[in-house]
């Protein structure tokens, strides 16, 4: 809502500047988004007279002008061709910044100093209404009576300031100047001076029209419809003061009738529409559209109507879309002699639906959508009558007012004591009374208890808490002290799931991965590839195609991030995300879907060059190492088995990950056939389900003591065939070593000469130790050779000395 300060000053005593008032309103709960000075861009533009005009000595296309700007005269060089000596023109002086943001500086054009600029309409962002016809395509030429030396903004009548109110949905009343004035009066404790029609439920001293019947066919969609019949209509431009106020409010002046309806709407909050009375044949019907019905609206567009579109129609055709836009056929034209001016209620929902559907939003539809004061419908027409007569625009002769439903008055009780308790401020009964008086609300008081009569324009006040807010904002929120809740002491806590995620995030970060956060909606194709198309949930109204389904896998989002980084030459990528995936059981969804937590990671590239460190490949073993860290942290035994039937992963470099015999995820290099799609080479991915890990995690650490007896270390290297896994050999070693074998680790894997083809050398380091005694070399040698025999037999392994 744009509020003209000039207009507002007429409605309420104001001793604050626009900026001060903006602060007062914002602190009082009516947020002011900005203060616009209408003269902006015109501060240094003055009206000048062209005294002489000469050709530039060194340039054929330029003219040197001598301009009288009142106190002085300036020389300005221009290229314009439409000027005559004696013309009055807007002159931007040096230092001006024009509405189109052009800054004017002293300049030299082919040797001639130019002290300003002559302005065109375009540079001043003005329309054709300003200036003579000769202005087209050149410098704006003003009428000969334009006063020389006057500020151009003043000349245009732009001295006003406008407050831009950002209204919350609970205050549609402030879409009316009179109610803004009431609000300002309450907050500044001043008296408003409103037109008498600002009071609701007034009657108009006019006879009921005998030849006009109004028929409301659906009283849920239209509670009240009043039509004012006007004769002897004289269509002409509205007076300047009205045009100025409309422009300041963001409304384009059209003619006196349309301007009066718009002016009253801005002032009273009630949208109005003027029909040419002589175009209405028979009765006026408020009804929904028939199947297949069409209408040509004011903007000349033919529109197909849905059967729930509310219309104003006569006996034969639709005259307009109720509350949204009038029809072209019943439009007020310069030949119009008689009017019917509509002031009505239409259903918020219906108007919203129609204006959305047709993409037509206006000051009027906005007010209907937010809900309006049904009690003010006829009073607004009273204001219309006054203005019609004042402007000599027409003669009101009759009124039809059909009322189907009138919301009853509301009383809300307010207890001073309760208010003090809830706000936490000690308030005197008198203070509360003062607030109600400032609001100009009627009430009955019994000691600390008030029965408040809520005026019809404050539809937002329904319960005691609403009135408490009125009290709080009028005494000022700053009066509320800071205290702490008085209840029992409570213990803050996270759930085990939250705790688990925090720890998991820490381990991954400490292991070198960067955490990323990606959108949880993604492209349908990528999600189908890595997740489950059958379960993925599409959005009805996605922002973009590539954000159209809820993910069932975290991987595509991470691959996107990796690809984007590599494309930007961030070549070393190791990232992870912990987040939900979303699983729908049926299409369309009937119940809320499952939300399942996953952790996933992607790594590609190698660590950067360092003068000491060997570069580390971000390969399968890189991520596996990190997952082993995770397993260690939570005491989980993760098992890696060759990935089965996973066409997304490299068949020789991928694993399914099991926890207690349940597959909970995978780790592997992406299949080479997919590399091109992502623009990534040798990228490794993993994804794990969180709930099984949380369920199986070790709850506390059980410590064991350190053995007192010395350990004996032996190394053992064997050559085995390529397909035998290190894990299998180690398992055998552990089994044969028994309880004296405390630890086995692989410390070397080697292929190539002199190892035969298809074979590899595995070197293990074994540590023997007893809890009870010192072991002898002999018994360790015996055990070691038993182990060697065993793996030679089982795997055909050969001892490598």
């Amino acid at each position, binding site marked *: 809502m744009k509020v003209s300060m000039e207009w507002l000053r007429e409605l309420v005593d104001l001793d604050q500047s626009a900026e001060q008032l903006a602060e007062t309103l914002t602190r009082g709960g009516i947020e002011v988004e900005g203060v616009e000075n209408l003269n902006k861009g015109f501060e240094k533009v003055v009206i000048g007279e062209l005294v002489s005009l000469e050709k530039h000595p060194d340039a054929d296309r330029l003219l040197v002008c001598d301009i009288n700007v009142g106190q002085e005269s300036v020389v300005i060089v221009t290229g314009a061709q439409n000027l005559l000596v004696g013309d009055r023109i807007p002159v931007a002086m040096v230092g001006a910044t024009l509405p189109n943001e052009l800054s004017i500086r002293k300049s030299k054009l082919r040797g001639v100093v130019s002290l300003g600029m002559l302005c065109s309409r375009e540079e001043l962002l003005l329309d054709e209404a300003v200036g003579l016809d000769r202005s087209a395509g050149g410098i704006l030429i003003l009428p000969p009576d334009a006063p020389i030396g006057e500020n151009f903004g003043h000349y245009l009548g732009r001295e006003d300031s406008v407050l831009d109110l950002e209204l919350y949905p609970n205050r549609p009343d402030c879409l009316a100047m009179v109610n803004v004035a009431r609000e300002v009066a309450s907050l500044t404790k001043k008296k408003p001076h409103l037109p008498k029609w600002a009071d609701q439920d007034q009657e108009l001293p006019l006879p009921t029209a005998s030849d006009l019947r109004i028929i409301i066919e659906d009283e849920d969609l239209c509670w009240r419809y009043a039509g004012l019949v006007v004769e002897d209509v004289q269509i002409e431009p509205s007076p300047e003061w009205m045009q100025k106020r409309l422009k300041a409010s963001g409304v384009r002046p059209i003619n006196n009738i349309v301007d009066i309806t718009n002016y009253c709407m801005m002032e009273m909050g009630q949208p109005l529409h003027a029909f040419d009375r002589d175009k209405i044949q028979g009765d006026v019907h408020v009804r929904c559209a028939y199947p297949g019905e069409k209408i040509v609206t004011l903007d000349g567009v033919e529109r197909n109507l849905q059967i729930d579109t509310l219309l104003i129609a006569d006996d034969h055709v639709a005259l307009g879309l109720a509350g949204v836009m009038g029809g072209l056929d019943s439009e007020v034209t310069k030949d119009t002699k008689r009017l019917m001016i509509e002031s009505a209620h239409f259903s918020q929902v219906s108007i919203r639906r129609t204006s959305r559907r047709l993409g037509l939003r206006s000051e009027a539809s906005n007010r209907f959508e937010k809900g309006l004061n049904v009690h003010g419908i006829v009073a607004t027409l009273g204001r219309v009558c006054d203005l019609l007569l004042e402007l000599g625009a027409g003669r009101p002769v009759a009124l039809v007012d059909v009322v189907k439903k009138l919301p009853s008055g509301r009383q809300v009780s307010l207890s001073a004591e309760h208010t003090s308790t809830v706000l936490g401020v000690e308030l005197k009964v008198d203070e509360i009374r003062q607030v109600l008086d400032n609001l100009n609300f009627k009430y009955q008081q019994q000691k600390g208890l008030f029965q408040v009569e809520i005026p019809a324009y404050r539809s937002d006040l329904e319960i005691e808490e609403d009135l408490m807010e009125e009290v709080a904002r009028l005494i000022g929120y700053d009066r509320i002290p800071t205290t702490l*809740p008085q209840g029992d002491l409570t213990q803050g806590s996270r759930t085990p*799931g939250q705790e688990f995620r925090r720890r998991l995030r820490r381990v991954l970060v400490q292991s070198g991965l960067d955490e990323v956060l990606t959108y949880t909606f993604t492209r349908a194709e990528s999600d189908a590839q890595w997740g489950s198309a059958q379960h993925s949930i599409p959005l009805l109204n996605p922002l973009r195609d590539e954000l159209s389904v809820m993910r069932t896998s975290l991987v595509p989002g991470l691959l996107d991030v990796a690809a984007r980084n590599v494309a930007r030459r961030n070549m070393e990528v190791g990232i992870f995300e912990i987040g939900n995936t979303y699983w729908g059981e049926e299409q369309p969804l009937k119940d809320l879907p499952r*939300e399942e937590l996953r952790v996933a990671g992607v790594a590609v590239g190698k660590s950067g060059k*360092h003068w000491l460190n060997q570069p580390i490949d971000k390969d399968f073993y890189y991520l596996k190492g990190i997952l082993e860290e995770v397993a260690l942290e939570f005491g989980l035994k993760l098992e890696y088995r060759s990935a089965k039937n996973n066409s997304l992963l490299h068949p020789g470099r991928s694993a399914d990950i099991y926890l207690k015999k349940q597959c909970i995820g995978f780790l592997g290099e992406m299949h080479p056939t997919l590399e091109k799609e992502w623009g990534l080479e040798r990228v490794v991915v993993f994804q794990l389900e969180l709930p099984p890990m949380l369920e199986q995690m070790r709850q506390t650490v059980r410590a064991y003591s350190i053995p007192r007896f010395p350990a004996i270390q032996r190394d053992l290297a064997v050559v085995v065939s390529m397909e035998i896994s290190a894990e299998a050999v180690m398992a055998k070693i552990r089994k044969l070593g028994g309880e004296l074998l405390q630890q086995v680790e692989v410390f070397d894997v080697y292929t190539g000469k002199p190892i035969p083809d298809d074979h590899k050398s595995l070197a293990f380091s074994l540590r023997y130790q007893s809890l009870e005694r010192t072991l002898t070399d002999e018994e360790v040698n015996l055990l070691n050779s038993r182990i060697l025999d065993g793996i030679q037999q089982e795997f055909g392994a050969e001892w490598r000395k």
Partner: protein
Amino acid sequence: MKHEIQRIGEETLKVLKDMESSEALQELKVKILGKKGSLTALLRQMGGLSPEERPIMGQVVNEVRSRLEQAWEERSAELEAIALEKRLSLERIDITLPGRRVQRGHHHPLTQVMEEIEDIFLGMGFQIAEGPEIESDYYNFEALNLPKEHPAREMQDSFYITEEILLRTQTSPVQVRTMEKLFPYLPVKVIAPGKVYRNDDDATHSPMFHQVEGLIVDHGIRMSDLKGILLNFSRQMFGDSREIRLRPSFFPFTEPSAEVDVSCMLCGGAGCRLCKGTGWIEILGSGMVHPRVLEAGGYDPKEVTGFAFGMGVERIAMLKFGIEDMRLLFDNDLRFLQQF
């Protein structure tokens, strides 16, 4: 013999002083005091001395030996010191070269801020609640006093899945879910962090973003308590000298409602570019829980009151880290993320 002993002593002492290595020193020691050393040989001859002479000679030998040993030790310590000095003078590294880097990852700035917010409220005795991101119209709107066709629904352009199921537009549905779960337990004292979604995308809006919701319900909760808790939070989050102010606002699920501003963390309230010259920065929305919302959660608004607040994690992160474009937070450029 006495002279012989003293001569060996004198000569050895003289040579000893010029010894340049500990090896040579050791050699000399063996030559004099070893099994076949010259002094040892003299001692062996002592058996041929008379009982009167023996103790006197013994004394002489011991004197010489202990003098020699002391000199040996001194010289050997000198030599060690010289050797050490030499080693230290050779062992020099360029301390300006970078160290062996331990590769450590980085927490996303949003999770950092979210954890920080959680920790502050954990310290004030709040529990952490959660709710589904895909939510029913009932919890997201209706139970929060936003019936169908309420104009306030338009403040939040929603992503719908069906007419009744949508991506939650706020963490507020967790309010009613938590009250339902805890009823009739008091106090209800939770915060609910999580992802929320609105159909919007520009430098200050992201279609997916994060909020932290807070809720207290108990006997006698006052609006001044809201102010106290949020002042405490703001000071821990933005610094001890921060002040807060409340401004009247509107949320369908709170009444009275308040927007909360914190004094500018950049200029301290004097007015600067960050706070657009006002000295204040809006950080969150709050209010006393609307009686209809308490009822939806199962509690009797005549018995208990409560307050609720909700803050945008992105906004707090942007303020805290001086991030100007929200889209950076979801772009995941590693150069950006590795700053945190």
